[in-house]
């Protein structure tokens, strides 16, 4: 099966000549949950931001459904079907929950905005109850749900998330990840950058370990978790399971 999202030898960084992503290659097939793990400073967030168009790319390419989208500006990537949920500041805090969804649903002049918003409220019932509330007053877990709904409302083929578990209590992490499994079940491919290796590998199909800006290991999620060397070096746990 050819990959839905394919990243080939990507080089990217904020300053010219100072690459943070150094030749990373990853791919995600349709309906997969692909997890990107790695130590701090490995370039995980920069890789996903470069794919989204927020970090300048200096080499390599990003191919989505057979189309090279490397040079497509960030605001047009979502039109191609590539959605991104940043780690922090991922909702418009001074807008209501409903306005967050409305502004996202309306960017392409779609006339079915109200219907799309109701679809998202059906998918995330907690948000429906808080539709008039300012997004800035939501709890961390609810913000993540809103951020996901904001990204999903335009029905992307690929949803990329940068550490959705960051700053959340274990209960909310469980809820967010359970929701990601449901989103995948609806046919959306998920690329997940995570520090919380245990939670991410539990729902992931395949995983990459990124080291110094490029993938050092790739394999089925379960086998990476079970690999003692990788677990100890990069994932912050020993094979025996002691954290």
């Amino acid at each position, binding site marked *: 099966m050819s990959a839905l999202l394919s990243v080939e030898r990507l080089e990217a960084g904020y300053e010219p000549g100072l690459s943070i992503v150094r030749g990373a290659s990853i791919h995600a097939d349709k309906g997969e949950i692909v997890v990107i793990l790695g130590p701090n400073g490995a370039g995980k967030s920069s890789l996903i931001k470069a794919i989204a*168009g927020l970090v300048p790319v200096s080499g390599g390419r990003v191919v989505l459904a057979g189309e090279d989208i490397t040079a497509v500006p960030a605001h047009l990537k979502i039109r191609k079907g590539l959605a991104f949920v940043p780690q922090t500041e991922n909702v418009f805090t001074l*807008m209501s929950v409903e306005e967050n969804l409305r*502004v996202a649903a*309306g*960017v392409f002049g779609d006339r079915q905005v109200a219907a799309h918003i109701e679809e998202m409220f059906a998918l995330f019932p907690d948000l429906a109850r808080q539709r008039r509330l300012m997004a800035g007053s939501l709890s961390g877990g609810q913000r993540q749900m809103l951020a996901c709904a904001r990204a999903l409302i335009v029905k992307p083929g690929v949803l990329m998330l940068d550490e959705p578990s960051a700053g959340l209590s274990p209960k909310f992490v469980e809820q967010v990840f359970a929701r990601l499994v449901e989103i995948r079940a609806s046919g959306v491919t998920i690329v997940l950058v995570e520090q919380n290796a245990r939670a991410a590998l539990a729902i992931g199909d395949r995983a990459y370990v990124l080291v110094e800006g490029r993938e050092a290991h790739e394999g089925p999620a379960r086998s990476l978790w079970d690999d003692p060397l990788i677990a100890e070096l990069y994932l912050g746990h020993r094979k025996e399971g002691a954290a």
Partner: protein
Amino acid sequence: MSLQFLLDGLISGAMIGLGAIGVTLTYSILRFSNFAHGDLMAWGAYAALVAVGALGAIAGGPMAIGALSFGLPLILSTLFAMVFTAGLALLLDWLLFARLRARGQAIIVVMASFGASMALRNLLEFLFSSSPAYYSRALQVAQPIGSGIRITPDQVALLVMTAALVTGMHLFLTRSQRGREMRAYSQNPALARVTGIDVARVVRATWVIGAALAAAAGVMVGTLVQIRPLMGLDLLLPMFAAAILGGIGSVPGAVLAGLIIGLSEAAAVMFVGAEWRAAVAFVILMSVLLVKPTGLFGVTER
């Protein structure tokens, strides 16, 4: 004691508030203090002066409506001035600000706006001289409305225009997709981009709206006071004070703060002395920055 100063303050506050909308939008969306904003106001006033002269010549007079000093020619000329000034702002952005913004250093853009301000102002003096000009030389009789307050028909009409423009602007920002995009971009540019919001479109809308409202404020000043190349510069400090007092990015805040500053200036003239008028905006600006930098309606980002 005459309460006339309250009306005078309200009128000058409306002019300041209308101009401050552009300042607050430019600051919150384009992330720089545009010191040329006052000169866009002056260019708007002069554009309307040229248009009203041409239309008046064709119509054979100002075609005054009722007790007003102006008629259809000035109304059409105001619309022309709003379009012209919006075009001028877009040209200025394309020629100057967009190129400097791309370098990512806000202070360079601010300094460039000082230069643009001087160039625009001197060009106006060169084209029209520094002598004051007027849309109409018709005398207006102020009508008493009680409590010792008198108001002219022009003042009533222009206050109604201000209220309509501010209400329209508020509805645009809260009810339209483009308005929501502008608010979204001002809150979080990176998130706006990945949400699919076209930055170039937001930037264009910001210039068009800010400049068009500046032109309307310029015509208001020109109608009620006089038209001079320095008219925008004189209002620059009060406009910045209003934008900051209202809370950067808040349109209702800018308008309310404009009214507060207008009323404070008028009160200073009444109770302290006319020479202190110019100091009022400065005192308010410094006090807000020291005590509550987020202003009346500004919110600290969470």
